[in-house]
């Protein structure tokens, strides 16, 4: 493993303390190991040197011992060899005498064996029994001048020393043989300062050198020194072998090593404990800080303990300061989020929270009536104060119920009520009680209040917030001119769903879901159907028939009315051709939205379409639409008229009417609103109004069509008043193209019968 890998491993420990402790332990252990290795190496090396020197010394000592013993033996042998009597005995072959002399000397000298070897090879011996081969080796060696050496007798090495017997010529040799046995070796071992073991061996495995070498023995690595000894057998190599197992050399140091190990272990243990304690002191504040950060993450405002003045202490202090700042800031943010900056009252969010806290909670929204008027009268700032006072008053009246400013001129309250009726009653009571004049800047201001009430909505409701629903309820209350109203979901409808409807309308056009229905117009003079009004119908694949009031109104609001109208014009032109082909020449009326009367490019389209097709169309517009933008509208109506399109003023009498505009609009026809015609049967006033209108129209050169003709009576009255055309269920309901053609094809009598 590389060093960087090791550090990486270190850095993966999750615990700082473990990491510190291990690092210190590792470094100290490394230093300890290195110094231990150094000590052991030095000691071992020193011990080896000592052993080597001692062995060399022991080898030298043995050399001297060998020489000394040889000399001593030689001296003894020599004394005997020179003894006149002995020589005489040898010369005269006096074997008993010779033997006794040898024995005597052997005992005196303390040697193991003695013999006299004649130059002819004949031997007389005591103490040892060398065989013929040994004697041959001995004789050959002595003959060649060797006087001291190792001789193997019966496999046992002997130190052999000889002295010549001259009588006066050489007769033979007096030979002393001393066993090189364990006892002698023990003596040598005792002389040595170190406990080495000595042995005389033949043909030692290692070459005889005077340098100690290290070899492996059953006792482990040992130092060995072989010292060559002279041998009578020229083929054999006798040697003194000194062996010293190194473990014996190391024995005196064992206690030193033991102490070293013990001191190392103790040091390591102390370091472990010390580092652990130290790192705990170091890491404890960090751990505490770490924990504090974790708790802060979970939204808890904790203070980390500051235990020191060092970097960690400063960090902890900074952390605490930061937590304090954070806490203040959040409090401020929370306050801002839940309070109205202008009045200091709790805001809508606060109210929603309060409402959400209780299942029986109801939100009551009190709106200051004619808010803009009041505000303009007393000023912006004063209005804020007024609302603050009003909020406090309402809250006090409702036994300290939570209160908030919800809109520019409305204050909300959360009250607890068992049901809607109870809540509504409470709201009416509060609205009535709180209407006392409010003093603003010393002047009393009269206010009236309207209240909207909403509870927790049913699941799946489009409006999730009760505050929103209460606001709508407030609007609904005002529309109904009531002091208080609860939220009416049915009345509110589904504005969101309607919005999606519009996006589907364009698809519906191309998919053929939208069609035109035609309602016939009865001509009193022609006594027949001379025209039809085209009305749009939308059959939605899921919703079924969509009310034209809904989708046309929304198309107007969302700017989709132009493509819808363009489609209707094209369709009407096509259908008029179809009707003509079926033999019915009819004027087709198309409703044109007021918004299109300010659209010159739409006028271009319409004029162009009519010119191209040569159709006989009538555009039904309202007088009100012209009044919104009279300049453009009048010009466009002029263009329609110039293009041969007849213009009909629709719903006359239901909206604003201005005779000025009536005069200026180049219309061909005026359609009296059905609200007048429906009351024609019973109301003389309506009859008068209709009669006057017909006269007025005729006076201006306009034809008159009556809408909503549903009874024969009305038809008869209209005929009597000189009305030109009649339209209504009595004449015919709006029907699809095919049904219209069928109706027209029916015998005229049937139709007339109905009408009359």
């Amino acid at each position, binding site marked *: 493993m590389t060093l960087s890998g090791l550090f990486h491993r270190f850095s993966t420990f999750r615990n700082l303390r473990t990491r510190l402790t291990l690092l210190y332990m590792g470094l100290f252990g490394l230093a300890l190991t290195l110094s231990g290795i150094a000590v052991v190496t030095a000691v071992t090396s020193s011990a080896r040197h000592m052993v080597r020197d001692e062995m060399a010394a022991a080898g030298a000592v043995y050399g001297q011992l060998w020489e000394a013993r040889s000399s001593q033996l030689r001296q003894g042998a020599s004394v005997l060899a*020179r003894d*006149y009597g002995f*020589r*005489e005995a040898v*010369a*005269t072959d006096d074997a008993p005498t010779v033997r006794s002399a040898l024995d005597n000397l052997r005992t005196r000298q303390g040697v193991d064996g003695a013999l006299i070897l004649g*130059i002819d090879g004949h031997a007389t011996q005591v103490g040892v029994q060398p065989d013929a081969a040994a004697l041959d080796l001995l004789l050959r060696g002595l003959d060649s001048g060797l006087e001291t050496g190792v001789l193997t007798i019966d496999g046992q090495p002997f130190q052999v020393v000889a002295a010549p017997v*001259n*009588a*006066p*010529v*050489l007769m033979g040799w007096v030979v002393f043989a001393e066993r090189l046995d364990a006892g002698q070796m023990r003596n040598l071992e005792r002389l040595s300062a170190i406990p080495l073991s000595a042995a005389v061996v033949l043909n030692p495995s290692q070459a005889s050198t005077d340098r100690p070498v290290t070899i492996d023995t059953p006792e482990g690595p040992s130092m060995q020194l072989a010292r060559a000894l002279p041998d009578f057998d020229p083929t054999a190599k006798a040697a003194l072998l000194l062996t010293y197992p190194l473990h014996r050399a190391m024995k005196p140091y064992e206690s030193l090593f033991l102490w070293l190990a013990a001191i190392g272990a103790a040091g390591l243990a102390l370091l472990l404990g010390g580092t652990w304690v130290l790192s705990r002191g170091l890491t404890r504040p960090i751990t505490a800080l770490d924990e504090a950060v974790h708790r802060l993450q979970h939204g808890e405002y904790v203070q980390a303990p500051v235990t020191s003045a060092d970097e960690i202490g400063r960090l902890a202090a900074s952390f605490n300061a930061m937590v304090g700042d954070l806490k203040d800031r959040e409090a401020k943010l929370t306050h801002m989020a839940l309070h109205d900056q202008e009045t200091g009252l709790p805001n809508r969010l606060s109210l929603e929270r309060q409402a959400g806290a209780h299942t029986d909670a109801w939100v009551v929204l009190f709106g200051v009536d004619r808010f803009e008027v009041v505000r303009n009268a007393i000023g912006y700032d004063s209005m804020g104060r007024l609302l603050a006072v009003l909020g406090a008053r309402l809250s006090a009246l409702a036994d300290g119920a939570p209160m908030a400013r919800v809109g520019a001129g409305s204050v909300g309250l959360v009250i607890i009520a068992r049901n809607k009726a109870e809540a509504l009653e409470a709201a009416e009571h509060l609205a009535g009680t709180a209407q006392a004049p409010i003093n603003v800047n010393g002047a009393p201001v009269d206010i009236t209040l309207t209240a909207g009430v909403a509870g927790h909505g049913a699941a799946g409701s489009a409006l999730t917030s009760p505050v929103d629903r209460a606001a709508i309820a407030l609007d609904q209350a005002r529309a109904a001119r009531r002091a208080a109203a609860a939220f009416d979901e049915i009345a509110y409808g589904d504005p969101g769903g309607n919005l999606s409807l519009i996006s589907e309308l364009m698809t519906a056009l191309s998919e053929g879901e939208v069609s035109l229905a035609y309602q016939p117009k009865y001509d009193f003079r022609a006594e027949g159907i001379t025209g039809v009004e085209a009305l749009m119908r939308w059959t939605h694949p899921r919703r079924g028939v969509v009310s034209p009031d809904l989708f046309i109104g929304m198309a107007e609001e969302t700017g989709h009315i132009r493509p819808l109208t363009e489609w209707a014009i094209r369709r009407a032109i096509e259908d008029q051709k179809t009707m003509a082909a079926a033999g019915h020449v009819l004027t087709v009326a198309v409703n044109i939205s007021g918004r299109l009367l300010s659209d010159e490019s739409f006028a271009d389209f319409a004029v162009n379409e009519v010119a191209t097709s040569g159709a006989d169309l009538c555009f039904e517009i309202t007088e009100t639409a012209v009044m919104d933008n009279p300049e453009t509208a009048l010009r466009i109506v002029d263009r329609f008229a110039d293009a041969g399109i007849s213009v009909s003023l629709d719903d006359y009498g239901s909206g604003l009417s201005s005779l000025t505009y009536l005069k200026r609009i180049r219309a061909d026809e005026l359609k009296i609103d059905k609200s007048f015609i429906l009351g024609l049967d019973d109301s003389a006033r309506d009859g008068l109004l209709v009669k006057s209108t017909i006269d007025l129209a005729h006076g201006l050169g306009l034809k008159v069509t009556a809408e909503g003709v549903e009874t024969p009576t009305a038809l008869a009255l209209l005929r009597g008043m000189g009305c030109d055309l009649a339209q209504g269920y009595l004449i015919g309901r709006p029907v699809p193209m095919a049904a219209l053609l069928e109706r027209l094809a029916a015998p005229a009598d049937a139709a007339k019968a109905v009408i009359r």
Partner: protein
Amino acid sequence: MRLLLTLLAALSFAAPAVAGDLTVSVRDAAGRPVRDAVVTVHPAAGVPRGPIRFPWASRMAQQDVRFLPYVLIAPVGGAVAFPNLDRVRHHVYSFSRGARFELELYGRDETRSHTFTTPGVAALGCNIHDEMLAYIKVVDTPWAMKTDTAGDAILRGVPAGGATLRVWHPRLAGRGNELARPLTVSAAPARHTIFGDFTARAVVR
């Protein structure tokens, strides 16, 4: 027995014969002359009877802690004088077979003598001075002579006919440190060269 031998010797000596001079040159293996080698000739006809006399003194002196001469040829039955010319005393001995004797400590200008009765070699030593060594070659023929420094020995008046030539030297390799060679002696002077190995050890028992 001794009488009979003497008689036989006399008989052989009396036989008419032509005598010749014989020069024997002794050389070692390297061809160098060897001195102090004892050359003897035993005619096949035998040696003349009667005591043998040599022209040199039958004497082994001790001078300067040495025997002098190193090799002495002595006739069998002849006495050899051992004068001590040193100031120290000597103890002359011989353990040689047939010539075993001992002349115990005697001083300056004292003379001892010993009669050698058996042919052979006596190795002489001094019990006091180990390094002293000399040889007395006891011969039973009048034709005996030591080689000189040139390695030559001249034997005069050797009867013609078959004979055995012997050479002895303490270092000569061979049985009894001796070489024997059959020889035909003619009246005319002859010269024989004997080569031998002179590195052997003296064997005197």
